[in-house]
């Protein structure tokens, strides 16, 4: 066991391999607040990568309705339960200390055990906690779609007052999931033959299809359950981060990195995908002009999914404003309250940046903001909040302008004679 630094936990942790980092890391932000659950991302991924025999049940991208939906069935409940039982057995608690925030511990310090640490502590004989979901748990990927929690307080389950923030009593939200291309992947730790690797150029995690022998240890130990077994080849497969697009080798890409298929098709404009620069010691190189760096490390608006698993996942979520905070803190860590507060009353830069989501399928490496006039002044979080019609400009890897959008969308009025035309 080696000791590696996990900045999401704010502390060093145990991992099977020595610390080694890619030059750049594939990362994305999913804004849960905007998702309409249309599954266009899911379909785009399926049509690109998993339409062949043996892949019928595979959804490298899926969108599940929380709290009940999950693919494979109850994956997060099961792994959280295992982690909880591990803490009980070890007589430990899994607490965050949010007071100890710092440069390399933005969410404070996690004092509990990760999935790899718990496996060692409990002497499981494996590299990480986990379980192998059988086929029936993969067979209903969107079960519990749009199923909300029950309204308490009225016999008919109907509220006379409606719902209001900060927390809705009856709630659900969509959780969009792909492989997290983790910094410390549990799948790679679990593979007994080192058939899983993390690419130096972009941190994308891949299964070497020539070395895989279908042991399914990765399926068993990826806590996010994003490794999947293919019965026709007897090997496991997973999300490849659309690497030909990320490399800029796609014919459409004009030689610059492009967003993945699931990101690029999003009608709800919830996704922003890019690469962030990683220093040799694993820290993110400060770059406040990179939209991902700004929103994840600068504003801390987007948070990792189940950071306590300890794999340092690289898909970040803007948490839904209306769901109960304890549930969200369990899912995204202690940064939830601040993230929601900042999302509810976004800074001038953040608001402009939010326009950049899905503005182009070319990855944006740098943004600039041209300031515009004050257009609105309202009260948010009990304070005055101003909205400016700023313009955000996105630049690709070669520094060329690829997107330009203003906060106030341009208004086009249909001429009178065409009122009824479609």
């Amino acid at each position, binding site marked *: 066991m080696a000791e590696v630094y996990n900045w999401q936990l704010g502390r060093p942790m145990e991992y099977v391999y020595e610390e080694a980092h890619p030059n750049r890391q594939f990362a994305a932000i999913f804004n849960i607040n905007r998702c309409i659950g249309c599954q266009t991302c899911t379909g785009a991924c399926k049509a690109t*990568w998993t*339409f*062949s*025999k*043996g892949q*019928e049940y595979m959804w490298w991208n899926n969108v599940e309705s929380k709290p009940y939906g999950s693919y494979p069935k109850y994956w997060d409940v099961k792994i959280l339960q295992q982690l909880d039982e591990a803490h009980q057995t070890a007589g430990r608690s899994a607490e965050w200390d949010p007071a100890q925030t710092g440069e390399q511990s933005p969410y404070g310090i996690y004092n509990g055990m990760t999935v790899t640490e718990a496996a060692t502590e409990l002497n499981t*004989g*494996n*590299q990480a906690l986990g379980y*192998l*979901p*059988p*086929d029936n748990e*993969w067979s209903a990927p969107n079960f519990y779609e749009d199923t909300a929690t029950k309204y308490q307080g009225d016999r008919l389950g109907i509220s006379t007052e409606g719902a209001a923030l900060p927390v809705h009593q009856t709630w659900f939200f969509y959780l969009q999931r792909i492989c997290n291309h983790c910094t410390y992947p549990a799948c790679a730790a*679990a593979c*007994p*033959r*080192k058939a899983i690797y993390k690419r130096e150029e972009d941190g994308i995690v891949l299964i*070497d*299809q*020539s*070395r*895989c*022998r*279908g*042991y*399914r*240890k990765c*399926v068993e130990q990826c806590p996010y359950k994003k490794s*999947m*077994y*293919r*019965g*026709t*080849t*007897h*090997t496991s*497969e997973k999300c490849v981060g659309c690497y030909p697009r990320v490399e800029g080798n796609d014919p459409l890409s004009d030689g610059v990195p492009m967003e993945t298929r699931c990101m690029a098709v999003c009608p709800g404009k919830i996704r922003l995908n890019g690469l962030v620069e990683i220093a040799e010691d694993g820290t993110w190189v400060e770059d406040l002009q990179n939209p991902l760096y700004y929103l994840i490390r600068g504003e801390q608006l987007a948070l990792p999914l189940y950071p306590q698993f300890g794999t340092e996942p690289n898909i970040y979520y803007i948490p839904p404003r209306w769901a109960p905070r304890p549930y969200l803190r369990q899912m995204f860590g202690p940064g939830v309250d601040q993230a929601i507060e900042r999302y509810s009353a976004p800074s001038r830069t953040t608001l402009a940046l939010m326009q950049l989501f899905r503005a182009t399928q070319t990855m944006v490496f740098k943004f600039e903001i041209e300031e515009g006039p004050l257009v609105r002044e309202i009260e948010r979080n009990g304070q005055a909040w101003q909205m400016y019609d700023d313009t955000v400009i996105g630049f690709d890897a070669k520094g060329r302008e690829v997107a330009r959008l203003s906060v106030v969308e341009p208004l086009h009025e249909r001429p009178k004679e065409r009122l009824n035309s479609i």
Partner: protein
Amino acid sequence: MITRSRLFLLTLLALAGMLTFFKIPLASSQGVTIAAAQVAGALPLDDVASAVWEESTAVSIPLSAQIVARPMFPDANVKAVDVRALYNDEQIAFLVTWEDETMDDTAVRVQDFADAVAIQFPLVEGQPFFCMGQQGGNVNIWHWKADWQAGLATRQDVDDVYPDMYVDGYTFADTEAGAIAPVSSYEDINYVPAMAADNLFASASYASPVEDLIAGSFGSLTSQPAEMQNVLGHGEFTDGKWRVIFTRDLQSPAAEDAQFENNQVYQLAFAAWDGANEERNGQKSTSQWISLQLGEPAAASGATGAAAPDGTDGSGGQSSANTLEGLPYIFVPMLLVFGAIVGVAAGIWVFSRLPDPKK
């Protein structure tokens, strides 16, 4: 505060640590020899019930769970295999039998694992580490798989295990082959990446139920190229028992293959997997090194080495010492055992001089 009990514990830990680190087994089944019987005629390549097998005495070889490297699985099911060996002028054959409650011969569904058995031969003189060899001490492994056996004629496919499945069709599949055409009919195999990468597991059909592999430590197991796959096999499951035959020519053209000659003693080891118990990879039962005797070895030799491939150890087969990369490795554990004994003695001496906290 150093007390007697703590010191005792520390000494024990140090000893256990050294034994584990240098891979010295406390108990071993060494001393067991399989005497291969020489027969004049053809070997029973696919007849597990052939009377010819009776010419060789069955040797029962105890297996125990692999608990050296992760993933470990102390509850492995197969406790012993019975082995018989035959050879003629050209080939050598092994019949391995073991008890198994269930026949698991499919690995199509995510939760299905197949039964399997393997024989391991050192590719250097002496005994490299008994689990998958070690650096500089490669091993040749013959791995029989129940699902490869079942899929010999036609590979098992998803529509075999899900007969009621429905699809509109598969892109790149040969439309003449029907809506649920096997992946082997694909015009573009880039969407069957394991097949495109020449992974034997994904090959359109299996030439043999036995895979011929090389390993040189945990995690290094590598299949030999398709053209070097030259181990044949045949397995049958009846009455709660697997009977599996392995056959190969005595001499193989592949450099990284075990070679056999008459009147020699070789080393080999066995491993078995119970698919129903989700056993696979390191989650298995293994034996220690076993001796395999062909004919009447020269009395003077007494060497236990396998015939090394072309000069792996540079000793040209003249040396009777067990060598790995020229290192007299046998001295390393000896020295350590000696060190450990001294350590324990010193521990006991200090122990006897320490105060007992209970008094």
